[in-house]
């Protein structure tokens, strides 16, 4: 009899440790969102390299836990917590920037440097979202972290939110990556709305061949200029340009391959899974998350508006033959290379022989530099 009651008691105790005893409605909702991410990644191929780790991370992070088991991402010393420090302390994003630098070809930008200005204009979305977040009652630090979603750069968003608003990191990063995946849906209507058919048919001069010397000088000069003006952006800018120098120097092929290959893949896996895990129901399912998603969408829209309009304004000052096709303006939001691909596809729709991809890559990579600079400025002002 005693044995039976002991067994029953132990079984009951065990049941209390299981997820079934601790599950809440929020956990189920988050697990379903994680499954949706995985579905979108596999079936629709929307940013699969990110949505699969984030989606599965969401499932991991939302398995109901008995508190104190030292396994949850927010429990000090747990394995997930240790891996999460890369997000909290901000050392994953610069490593990703190293990889981005090592895989980015800045030739399009170097051959037509005025495309840098288009990348700068598209950063307006960041500050529009910042003002919007302030109006909705977020603190300036939180507003800065939310605004950076408009930079359309996942690592930058994670880096900045980790520094300025760690509590919002889950919502901000998921929002940033979701909208990056939705670039082909969000941008084309705005591009069509702001351009005339004549403008969409503008043919841009083919980019000139860029010498190896110019490619080597670019990351060095680029870093010196941007870092001296915005030192707070050094972690991102330094790694971006360093990665590019590894690629372009021609003598560090192995290092460049490691940076853009295995190292980048490892960090993408870790950042994706831990960001996904950080979206625990009690932290993520809040009214503020909905506002963040709304502000993120607004910032993408404003950034696209600003990029396309800036091209049109710039064309007023450019001679015929040197004019820009405004369809490349959307590429100023970084989202490499998706937004450039959107420009290319839209360009082909109106003229099947007008290939805008290389031209759009200019503002696209300029957007990466611009968003890193903007992140540095926000960090300098608000942290």
């Amino acid at each position, binding site marked *: 009899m005693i044995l039976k009651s002991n067994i029953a008691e132990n079984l009951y105790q065990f049941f209390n440790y299981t997820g079934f005893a601790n599950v809440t409605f929020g956990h189920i909702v988050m697990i379903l969102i994680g499954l949706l991410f995985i579905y979108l990644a596999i079936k629709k191929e929307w940013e699969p390299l990110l949505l699969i780790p984030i989606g599965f991370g969401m499932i991991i992070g939302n398995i109901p836990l008995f508190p104190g088991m030292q396994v949850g991402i927010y429990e000090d010393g747990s394995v997930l917590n240790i891996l999460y420090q890369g997000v909290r302390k901000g050392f994953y994003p610069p490593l990703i920037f190293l990889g981005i630098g090592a895989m980015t070809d800045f030739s399009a*930008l*170097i*051959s037509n*440097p*005025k495309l*840098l*200005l288009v*990348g*700068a204009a598209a*950063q*307006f979305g*960041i*500050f*529009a979202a*910042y*003002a919007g977040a*302030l*109006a909705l009652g977020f*603190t*300036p*630090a939180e*507003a*800065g972290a939310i605004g950076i979603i408009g930079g359309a750069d996942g690592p930058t968003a994670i880096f900045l939110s980790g520094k*300025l608003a760690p509590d919002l990191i889950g919502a901000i990063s998921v929002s940033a990556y979701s909208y990056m995946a939705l670039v082909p849906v969000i941008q084309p209507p705005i591009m069509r709305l702001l351009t005339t058919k004549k403008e969409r048919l503008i043919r841009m001069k083919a980019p*000139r061949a*860029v*010498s190896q*010397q*110019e490619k080597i*000088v*670019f990351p060095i*000069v*680029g870093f010196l*200029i*941007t870092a001296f*003006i*915005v030192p707070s952006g050094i972690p991102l800018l330094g790694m971006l340009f360093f990665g590019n120098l590894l690629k372009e120097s021609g003598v560090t092929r192995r290092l460049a391959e490691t940076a853009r290959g295995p190292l980048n893949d490892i960090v993408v896996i870790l950042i994706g899974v831990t960001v996904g895990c950080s979206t625990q129901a009690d932290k993520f399912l809040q009214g503020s998350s909905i506002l963040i998603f709304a502000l993120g969408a607004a910032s993408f829209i404003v950034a696209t508006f600003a990029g396309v309009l800036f091209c049109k304004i710039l064309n007023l000052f450019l001679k015929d033959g040197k004019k820009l096709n405004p369809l490349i303006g959307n590429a100023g939001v970084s989202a490499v290379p998706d937004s450039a691909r959107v420009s290319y596809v839209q360009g082909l729709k109106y003229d099947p022989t007008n290939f805008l991809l290389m031209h759009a890559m200019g503002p696209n990579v*300029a957007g990466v*530099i*611009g968003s890193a*600079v*903007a992140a540095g*400025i*926000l960090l300098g*002002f*608000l*942290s």
Partner: protein
Amino acid sequence: MKKFLSIFALASLLLLSKASFAQSPVDIRINEVQLSNTTGIEDENGDRCGWVELFNTAFGMVDVAGFYLTDDKANPTKYMIPKGNPATQIPLRRYFVLYADGNPSAGVFHMNFTLEGVKDLYLYATDGITLLDEIHIPAGIASDRSFGRVSDGRGNHEPLNWSKQSYRKNHEDAEIGPDGGFAVLDHPTPGQTNTTKAIETKSEKMGKQDPYGGILAMIAMSVVFLCLIILYLCFRTIGKRSMKKAEAEKAAKTAPKAAAVSSNPSNVDEEIVAAIAIACHLYQNGTDSGIHDVESNVITFNKDLLRNSPWGARNLTLKQDPRN
């Protein structure tokens, strides 16, 4: 005379040392109190409640064990600070916090009364008779604010019924003002100095200076543009120089050849001669000779129905004969 001077010096030294290191109950002050605490300090059980902070103004340790705190002058021994715990020995210029949750069983330093509605608080020495300090708490202090001395240990709530004038005359803190140096503190600081100015973060400062975000947006966009305009100017210049250099190099390469060709037309490159000869041969013999095959002029792309890449294709990765 020398003897007298020595005795005088020794006495002075003793007096000075006594004055400097005086450590007595009178050096303890009620430094800060919080009546309602919903977001501040938590006790050892993770609960929030009102609290009382004592401050040792002396430059030596003072043990407050056995001191009494009360909100009722008629009952001076209402709560006794427990004895036998080393934590009651307050080091020089340090603080000691007691939780006013009315539940002494919750922990060692939990008082047996709460501060809700309390107007006066008195600190008595171990004899339960000597009044060491008192404060008078104004009504209507908002939740999560505290009341205490603006400067640690300084000022008095006139426990000796001094007139304000004599208080000012006699007290070292002439600048303290008519409120006796007490104020409602926006940022409670249990266990820490009250004089600490709440550090205003950059974010808070920015929120005050630029509540709508317009200034930051303008500055930041200007800086982003400045960075990228400088980069643009740099690379426009570098690009122009590079193009000029490339043109000059090209011209230098083609110039000798052109000169050679113009001076001796028969000196044509052998590869060019061979290409011209083959072209002429093909043209003269036509397609009937079978030298050149006839192309359909149709290019077809066949879709590969195999979904596997060569990496996944077993027939490409396995050996035909496993024994080899």
